[in-house]
């Protein structure tokens, strides 16, 4: 109170001063100076005069400069202030390819990421924090800690050009890597900048590996102010999947749905699932009425003693040794998922002078796992340093990032079903726990061979996947003569992954007959030696930058694994390879690639108006055939900074206007290391990757009939070579406009691009007649990709420290396969009469439905289809498929032919969105800052797995409550087809019944921060202190057709739902 009183009676005073640019020390004109009473701007000599009061704060703001707050004291006057260039300014220097350049000089499509978006991210990776923020960068994740259940999320830059691997190339402090984790494991506070090179003209300097786009990450490298800076960030997050949980049937209601299905099929419901459900009903198939569902009070019929007849689960245990368990009403989602706690923290220490600098950064991330017994943990350390000698002519430096991750992921059951799927499909009558406290499971008649998912996670708990990653480089810059710099860098990228696989014996459902433990190690080492020579020249109004370089990349990959069976104990400490007493097997392999490149770059700028850049790269790769190892990738761009033209001088509201245009070619070599070779291998006893537990694919055979022991073995072909294999290349045209109005209050950019990818590398399936190991990589298809990106920001600063910024972005891309060799065509949707050519490669090919037959007569009058009239409803309530076409005797398509068959399939949309959009609102007022971010997609067609779960019943699984509202003769309004256990209409076929509009908008992040005042911070010996709370994935708006609660839970029930999270965090600077 006293303070307020003092303030309100504070004495008014006039303050004068001068504002200069901190770097150039030249006066700054037009700087806004604000007090409570007044707002003035500086004159041409940087001077100002303003009325204020003691206790107030003066705010100095200027476009492109960091705002400055100056508290007014009694002695405040004759101020001399330096304003510092803010990082997001046009003059920002960014690295775009072996060289840094000013952002204003950029002529390609480059998104410079606003780092505030990743700063307070609680995700496991800075990449996940970028979701929706960068136009043209599309990220699709699941709810697991890494966004891809242990692997990388789907990352696409400007859609998909190739038909194969779509992962972008990462350049981390100059070291190229395709390993997503190298980026994911960086602490966000150590990142200095992230650039996304989207078009060929920007990325072609990276040549053969740039066609999926390039993400350049530069980490911080010390300070220059002779001070030591300490930054500490920490946060704690609570994640829950509850808001996204799907509704499923209870034990009782599941019985009702199964009864209805059996009655519809004309089969006796008491004989359908009679080990679990029996029914008290009127027995009248034409007017069925259900009085009561009787649930078998017990689950399970088996133990190791032969049961004695008569066995009846409705009667119960019949001898003391039988392990029958009471039936339950389990919510398997509640059982499998638990709230997860995510703790993250990092400590960055940096310092230095104009000659030397260093950064040390230590981070910790621990996600306790949304699914029982899963976990993700990471430790990482970063050490960057640099120094110089000989009058700064020689610079030395290194960047090093070491990270160690350890994770236990979601698993599958003994038969291969993923646990997230089981949490939706396992019958609720199965108890989570038996009465003796051990895990319950499906046992006995009426149940499937699926396991209790929680038990499976429990048995999987020792299956850690550990990975050690080291990436970094050491470099020397040598200024040979003025402006001529020779740079050499040796970079390395090392991954050592060790996966432990303990297949333990459980005690419910199908159990393994023996346990086993295996370890699989994969080592991957890439060394990159880069040499460049660069020369900068300035004459008159011209600037010329030249660069030439070479790069040699050597990658070696090896695996080594061993497995032992039969362990006496199932303890983590006992599970060592030598402790098993059963069969022992081992495996190992080696592979690698070499890449040698020469490249050059020339930039010319005239009067900051006209910009031109030319790059070229020649790559040689060991991955290609002996006939075509080399590829050349040129690019040319032009830029015109229109606002610097004389005729623009008077137009004050335009602060920036730049037109960019570029063409370029990039390549792709993301195929197997040995794709050009024909390979035969002595596969003694390998099994199929698809069914590793069951399907031998090896070459050993018991020719002597001895039944056991070592067998004679031979060789099998596993791949057919192609010595003509060559680069896949993408030609791209990009036209862009950058603009800024009203002193950069409104900024934005628009890019249009068109890219044509040709000679796409693909390994098409072949006619089975060719046999085993006959698949080969070929250069085949061509794909066109067109699109645009648009980003618009509005920045507002008002009096009293209220500022806000709104940024909206949208991007669109559409691909079209333009040609496809006949031998490649079968790899894509479609058939002999419906070629994917002319369609997106993500097209869905299937049947159209048109409602439901309301009567048997309707079904009889409709185009014929085997099985549709089966059951007591004789076609009523069945899905009506549209008769589109038939074929004539030559196999050519005709019009509708009165029958539904494979010829009636058509294109149903694409699984990737037409438009992705995001909106970001940042507000700050005094000490508070608020940030709201949401993003979404439109024009996406997706498989709605929950609709399937709500439409179709199976005697062995659970399903959704939608089944209770399915079509019956009494409930004809329903859009859900009549329940059936027979499915003689084949309603599981791909159709637009459940490939529906999957557009959505998600509120991804709301964050509120409070910055403690300098006074309080300094009392705590800090430079600044901020605390914040945030919520992620708060709600979704989605298409009505899409019934899954989480619109990102598309295509598969095996995905983790993306959880809702709440975070509290702290940022401190010392």
């Amino acid at each position, binding site marked *: 109170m006293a303070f307020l009183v003092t303030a309100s009676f504070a004495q008014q005073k006039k303050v004068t001063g001068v504002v200069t640019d901190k770097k150039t020390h030249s006066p700054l004109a037009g700087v806004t100076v604000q007090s409570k009473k007044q707002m003035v701007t500086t004159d041409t000599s940087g001077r100002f005069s303003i009325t204020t009061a003691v206790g107030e704060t003066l705010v100095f703001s200027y476009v492109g400069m960091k705002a400055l707050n100056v508290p007014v004291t009694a002695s405040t006057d004759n101020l001399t202030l330096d304003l510092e260039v803010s990082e997001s300014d046009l003059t920002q220097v960014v690295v775009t390819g072996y060289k840094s350049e000013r952002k204003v000089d950029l002529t390609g499509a480059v998104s410079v990421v606003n780092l505030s978006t990743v700063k307070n991210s609680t995700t496991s990776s800075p990449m996940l924090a970028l979701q929706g923020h960068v136009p043209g960068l599309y990220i699709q994740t699941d709810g697991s800690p890494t966004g891809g259940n242990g692997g990388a999320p789907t990352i696409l830059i400007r859609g998909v050009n190739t038909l194969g691997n779509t992962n972008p190339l990462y350049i981390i402090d100059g070291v190229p890597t395709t390993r997503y984790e190298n980026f994911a494991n960086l602490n966000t506070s150590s990142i200095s900048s992230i650039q996304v090179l989207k078009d060929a003209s920007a990325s072609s300097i990276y040549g053969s590996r740039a066609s999926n786009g390039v993400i350049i990450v530069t980490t911080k490298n010390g300070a220059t102010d002779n001070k030591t800076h300490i930054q500490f960030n920490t946060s704690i997050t609570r994640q829950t999947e509850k808001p996204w949980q799907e509704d499923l049937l209870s034990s009782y209601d599941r019985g009702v749905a199964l009864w209805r299905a059996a009655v519809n099929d004309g089969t006796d419901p008491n004989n359908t699932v009679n080990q679990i459900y029996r029914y008290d009903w009127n027995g009248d198939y034409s007017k069925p009425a259900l009085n009561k569902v009787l649930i078998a009070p017990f689950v399970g019929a088996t133990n190791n003693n032969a049961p004695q007849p008569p066995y009846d689960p409705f009667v119960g245990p019949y001898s003391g040794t039988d392990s029958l368990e009471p039936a339950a009403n389990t919510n398997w989602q509640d059982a499998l998922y638990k709230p997860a706690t995510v703790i993250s923290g990092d400590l960055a220490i940096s310092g230095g002078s104009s000659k030397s600098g260093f950064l040390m950064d230590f981070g910790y991330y621990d996600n306790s796992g949304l699914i029982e017994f899963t976990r993700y943990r990471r430790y990482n350390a970063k050490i960057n340093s640099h120094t110089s000698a000989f009058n700064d002519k020689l610079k030395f430096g290194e960047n090093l990032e070491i990270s160690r991750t350890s994770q236990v992921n979601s698993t599958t059951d003994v038969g291969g079903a993923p646990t997230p799927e089981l949490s939706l499909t396992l019958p609720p009558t199965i108890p989570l726990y038996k009465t003796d406290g051990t895990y319950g499971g499906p046992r006995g008649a009426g149940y499937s061979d699926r396991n209790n998912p929680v038990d499976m996670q429990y048995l999987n708990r020792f299956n850690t996947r550990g990975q050690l990653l080291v990436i970094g480089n050491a470099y020397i810059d040598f200024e040979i003569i003025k402006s001529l710099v020779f740079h050499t860098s040796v970079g390395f990228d090392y991954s050592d992954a060790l996966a432990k696989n303990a297949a333990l014996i459980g005690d419910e459902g199908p159990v393994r007959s023996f346990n086993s433990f295996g370890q699989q190690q994969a080592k991957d080492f890439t060394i990159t030696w880069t040499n460049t020579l660069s020369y900068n020249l300035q004459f008159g109004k011209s600037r010329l930058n030249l660069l030439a370089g070479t790069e040699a990349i050597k990658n070696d990959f090896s695996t080594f694994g061993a497995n032992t069976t039969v362990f006496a104990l199932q303890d983590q400490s006992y599970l060592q390879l030598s402790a098993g007493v059963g069969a022992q097997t081992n495996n190992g392999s080696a592979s690698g690639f070499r890449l040698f490149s020469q490249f050059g770059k020339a930039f010319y700028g005239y009067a900051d108006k006209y910009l031109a850049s030319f790059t070229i790269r020649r790559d040689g790769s060991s991955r290609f055939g002996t006939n075509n190892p080399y590829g050349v990738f040129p690019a040319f761009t032009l830029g015109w900074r229109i606002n610097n033209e004389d005729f623009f001088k008077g137009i004050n509201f335009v602060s920036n206007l730049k037109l960019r245009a570029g063409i370029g070619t990039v390549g792709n070599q993301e195929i197997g290391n040995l794709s050009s070779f024909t*390979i035969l291998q002595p596969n003694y006893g390998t099994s199929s990757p698809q069914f590793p537990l069951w399907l031998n694919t090896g070459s050993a055979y018991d020719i002597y009939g001895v039944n056991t*022991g070592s067998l004679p073995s031979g060789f099998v072909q596993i791949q057919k070579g192609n010595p003509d294999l060559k680069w896949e290349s993408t030609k791209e045209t990009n036209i862009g406009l950058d603009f800024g109005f009203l002193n950069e209050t409104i900024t934005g950019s628009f890019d249009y691009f068109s890219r044509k990818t040709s000679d796409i590398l693909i390994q098409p399936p072949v006619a089975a007649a060719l046999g085993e190991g006959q698949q080969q990589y070929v250069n085949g298809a061509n794909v066109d990709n067109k699109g645009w990106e648009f980003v618009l920001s509005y920045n507002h600063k008002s009096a009293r420290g209220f500022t806000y910024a709104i940024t909206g972005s949208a991007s669109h891309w559409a691909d079209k396969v333009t040609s496809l060799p006949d031998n490649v065509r079968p790899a894509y949707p479609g058939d002999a009469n419906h070629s994917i050519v002319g369609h997106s490669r993500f097209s869905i090919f299937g049947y159209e439905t048109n409602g439901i037959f309301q009567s048997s007569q309707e079904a009889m009058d409709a185009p014929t289809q085997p099985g549709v009239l089966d059951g007591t409803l004789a076609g009523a309530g069945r899905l009506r498929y549209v008769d589109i076409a038939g074929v004539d005797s030559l196999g050519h398509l005709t019009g509708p032919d009165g029958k539904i068959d494979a010829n009636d399939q058509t294109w149903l949309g694409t699984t990737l969105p037409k438009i992705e959009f995001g909106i970001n609102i940042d507000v700050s007022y005094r000490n508070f800052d608020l940030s709201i971010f949401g993003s979404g997609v439109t024009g996406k067609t997706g498989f709605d797995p929950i609709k399937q779960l709500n439409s179709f019943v199976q005697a062995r699984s659970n399903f959704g409550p939608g089944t209770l509202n399915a079509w019956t003769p009494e409930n004809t309004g329903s859009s859900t087809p009549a329940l059936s256990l027979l499915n003689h209409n084949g309603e599981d076929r791909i159709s637009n019944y459940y490939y529906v509009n999957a557009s959505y908008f998600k509120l991804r992040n709301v964050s509120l921060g409070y910055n403690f005042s300098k006074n309080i911070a300094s009392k705590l010996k800090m430079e600044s202190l901020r605390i914040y709370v945030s919520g992620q994935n708060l709600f979704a708006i989605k298409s009505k057709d899409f019934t899954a609660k989480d619109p990102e839970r598309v295509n598969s029930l095996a995905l983790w739902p993306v959880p809702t999270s709440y975070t509290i965090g702290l940022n401190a600077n010392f």
Partner: protein
Amino acid sequence: MKYNSIKILLAAVIFFSMGCKKFLDYKPQGALSASDLTTPAAADGLATAAYAGIANDWWDAPITSMWEYSSIRSDDAYKGGGDIGDQQQMDKYEQFYLVNSSNNGAGDFGFPGTWIRAYGAISRINNALRALHNLTDDEFPERTSRIGEMHFLRGHMYFLLKVMFRNIPWFDETLTNDEILQVSNTMSNDELWDKIAGDFQAAIDSLPETQPGQPGRANQLSAKAYLAKVRLYQAYTQDDNYTVVGIDQAKIQEVISLTNDVINSGQYALNSDFAYNFLDGHDNSPESVFAIQYSINDGTTIGGRLSMSTSLNYFAGAPQYGCCAFHVPSQNLVNAFQTDKNGLPNFDHFNDVALKDADLTANGVTMDPRIDHTIGIQGHPFKYDPLIPYDHSWERLAGVYGGFGTMKELQLASCPCFKKLGPFYGTSVNMDVIRYDDVLLMNAEAQIQSTSGNLQTALNEINQIRTRAAASTELLKKTDGTFPSNYKIDIYKPGVNIPVWDKATAFKALQWERRMEFAMESPRFFDLVRWGIAEPTLNAFFAVEKTRHPFLSSAHFTHGTHEYFPIPQEQITFTNGLYKQNPGY
């Protein structure tokens, strides 16, 4: 300083212009190229891999046991499993509502995968043949034999494809990949049979009569037996509507001559007990003419080259098992084991009454003893173990498929040949492709169908089979030493227990005998199609069986379509429509 600068600059320039061919050289590790496979050992290895190739399967798309494609499509068995939708592709096979191959509903599961695997095996065989052709007998003394073996294996794979799909692309090792892609499936039915027969003839021409110590290899006699099988199928001339329009006497004579060679060789004989054909410890018995060799604990990844094509067929609720109860004997099959007062099949009235547990006892209706080798019946010893009586509680969906259990392809969990792999089970017991009982019955069938055949020989051969069946009861006893069923089986005695042994009677007896002898082993559907009686037999079967098992209420067999599977749609697509789809699909 200046001097150093120049040196570095020079070095940089040299580096920039340096060649890099050598740096880019990278050769595959731990692998071979085709040119490495020129040695006898390598060619022999390719031949061994070809043997492995005919056995690399499991139930998703078998190329060994044909239970999914024959047994459940015939009157012998139901699909079984957890419900009608469990592996629904098989329900479509069983009830004949498969719309077409792209609506298989299970990806490559089922016949499309079998097509792929069979041609995969053929490619291994052709690779081996190419390598063998490049050697001489001097370099590799076993070369001729190996060539014969490869022809045998190729004939075996094509035979399997032929009986499933009828119209298949046929080619041999002389074609390049480009040429193979030009081969359509439009070769005439007879020519195709001749091609398959040609492989077996080539095998006969180059194989030794026996392969001592190497029972896994084909020999001349096994090739003769298989060629007889091919000619027997070919002899029933089919028109384009799959109607049998005649018996090719030349082919019939060939069957007689070939099977006579095998029978007269003295190398094979019936086992003393029928049970040995289905039990561990009797692999490569005298009755086994050619078998797929399985092994256990042999250092392979899954713990053995195990027989996995029938691994779905263990009982859901039985001790030590747990899944998945597929391949359930039909009521019709159970009834078919019924014998009349003379111990002969109850040809005309076997299916009048559905035999239940109470009928199948020591005092019940008279039965052929082979029922207790073939079918699990309530309270009867399971798999020759009187301590483990078969129990209904083992059945998985009793209300739909319940009543009985399959047995021949199963092994006891206590068997050293048995391994549990996840929810499935494998055994190392061999799977016979041709047995001596089959050779005898092929000879008998040919004698009956021949215009100049010897019906007496046929009678003797059928009676040999029945005599052995009658003698195969020792292992069927319960713990108290009594038999679980009322066995009564006799040989055919014309004029005594049958009025006359004429051609019609003999053929009826032959058809019945084949069903009893090979019940649940899967030749049944292929036999019915060969004889041209699939449509009447199956629709008559459905008409009665659906009153006992309502899930069959919609089942119906269409003549001219359902005799064969469709050509997998993807294969038609892969060849741009070069392959012609079978009629009706």
